[in-house]
């Protein structure tokens, strides 16, 4: 078993408080190992981004983490719960341990500051003793790392293309050599060619620098290629988690199966593209039993009554589905 670096335990995230609140993430358990790429996939509104913001304490109001813990294993062997440490300590860990590449690359950069300022200020905030000269050199080096000419260092964000801005954001994420990089739909706003180039860069960088990645996307085809393990989310819950090869070859949950049948395979046998009929449930009035059963082509009687729990099925894979009852309990 590889070394664990980040563990999410029983995380619940609500929007709003009291009787009008909506639970956007329920009982999520996730483990990220060292050097691993963990993919997080699901439709829009399935809670992927909320999960990412919730575990890093960046959730904007009215979002609140209702319960759970996020354990981070530091290099010196100690473990901290990100949801409970003091603000100052959290600020110290942010970016130096866990960096984030956000969904909207276009708006992730401060429009009134030069790229150089924004690259340098994070270095300055975390290691104030470095010289301005060293910080500039590091910024230059970071840009070259993601394939941007160093002379763009003093550009303003609006002078760069969308793809370049996303590269800058990736460069910024790597500024402090973090051990974990969370990527929230990093390529969504870009065209397919640029998407490819950026993913290529990411794969190379990860191999060279060895950080772990939590990769969030609605594009399962990307994950199958890029990640080691995939967790599928539906209506705020993880419904299946497996090594990406296993998931691709034999998805256990009908929802994973539906997602996989939503895009054509490049290699191998031709499959029929079916998609998933219906739309995700309204989080304010969730169906009884399994949240997916109204859309499920293989629903059993029990699915409408009881909620299936995520657990190890007989062949050792994690799935929350009555078609694959959990081995124990």
């Amino acid at each position, binding site marked *: 078993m590889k070394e664990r670096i980040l563990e999410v335990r029983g995380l619940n995230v609500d929007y709003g408080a009291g009787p009008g609140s909506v639970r956007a993430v329920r009982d999520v358990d996730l483990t990220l190992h060292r050097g691993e790429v963990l993919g997080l996939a699901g439709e829009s509104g399935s809670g992927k981004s909320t999960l990412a913001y919730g575990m890093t304490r960046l959730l*904007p109001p009215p979002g609140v983490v209702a319960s759970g813990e996020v354990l981070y294993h530091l290099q010196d062997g100690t473990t901290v719960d990100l949801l409970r440490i003091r603000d100052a300590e959290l600020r110290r860990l*942010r970016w130096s341990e866990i960096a984030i590449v956000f969904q909207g690359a276009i708006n992730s950069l401060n429009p009134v500051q030069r790229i150089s300022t924004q690259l340098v200020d994070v270095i300055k905030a975390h290691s104030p003793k470095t010289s301005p000269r060293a910080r500039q050199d590091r910024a230059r080096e970071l840009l070259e790392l993601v394939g941007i000419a160093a002379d763009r260092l003093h550009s303003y964000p609006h002078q760069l293309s969308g793809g370049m801005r996303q590269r800058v954001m990736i460069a910024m994420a790597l500024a402090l050599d973090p051990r974990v990089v969370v990527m929230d739909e990093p390529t969504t706003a870009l065209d397919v060619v640029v998407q490819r180039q950026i993913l290529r860069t990411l794969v190379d960088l990860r191999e060279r620098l060895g950080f772990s990645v939590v990769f969030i996307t609605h594009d399962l085809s990307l994950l199958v290629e890029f990640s080691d393990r995939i967790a599928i989310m539906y209506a705020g819950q993880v419904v299946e988690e497996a090594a990406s090869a296993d998931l691709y070859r034999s998805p256990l949950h009908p929802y994973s199966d539906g997602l996989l049948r939503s895009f054509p395979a490049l290699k191998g046998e031709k499959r029929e593209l079916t998609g998933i009929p219906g739309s995700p449930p309204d989080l304010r009035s969730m169906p009884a039993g399994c949240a997916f059963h109204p859309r499920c082509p293989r629903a059993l009687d029990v699915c409408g009554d009881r909620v299936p729990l995520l657990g190890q099925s007989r062949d050792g894979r994690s799935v929350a589905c009555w078609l694959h009852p959990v081995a124990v309990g």
Partner: protein
Amino acid sequence: MSYLLKRFGFYLLTAWAAVTINFFVPRMIPGDPVQALITKQRGQMTSESVRSLYVLFGLDKDESLASQYFSYLGQLLRGDLGLSFTFFPTPVAEVIGDGLPWTVGLVGITTVIGFLLGTAAGAVVGWRRGTWADSLIPVTTFVSSIPYFWLGLVAIALLTGPGSFFPASGAYAIGLVPNWDWQFIGSTVQHALLPAFTILVSSVSGWILSMRNMMVTVSSDDYVTVAHAKGLPERRVMLAYAARNALLPNVSGFALALGFIVGGTLLVEIVFSYPGLGLQLFQAVGAKDYPLLQGIFLIITLSVLLANLLADVAYLALDPRTRREG
């Protein structure tokens, strides 16, 4: 740079249009200033002096409208705005020169202070939304809706009177001669306190409201979240990321406010009998003093244009997106 030149050309054109309108409108009004002056002197004028008045006001009938217009432009360029009726025979330029420093000193300084205070407070209140700071909002909304001249009247009624520190009217104690000694400066400050306070109270709340709302909007922008995620010190996120961007729309509001310094606080000057441009405008309207009215309108127009030009420059300095290459 070419952008700024273009703007400058535009303002020059606008200034010319304003000057032209300023020339033609009074000439379309039935009657003329000389008639008004004759009435004022109860007809006790020789026909000689009446004719010389016509020449003096540039209204001698022999000249065509076009040549009048060009000689008017020529006079303007030399800073000659004609003669005032109410302060006859003082030139309008001199009358305005007397009033302008008081208005700019009182209203100008309070406008700048109000903007700085209000914007700083609004940034803090907006940043701390959801805390006790939110309770300031209903108060500022209420205060900003109070007309400042009414506030001035209340201040005069409550705070001035025999034996009070605050004088009720004027810009300095009667009997003092304006010069740069401490006694005069002290008296000026003492007289400016109440009017400045009334302007400040109502303008500060306006700035707080607009800055606070922009801060709330900007705080949910992605780059602010990124700044938090980067673990930057809270102060830096608030100032360099949120407030810096929230400030931009307020800058144009501030430029407009600067433009209205001259014309906008007429009522405060009337309430406090403050000898600025506003009070002069009020007197000029009452006395049908067309040259003075024209002169003051010209100053108001030019100051609005100048303020807009300043706003353009400020925008170029603050927002790199407005800078065009080449």
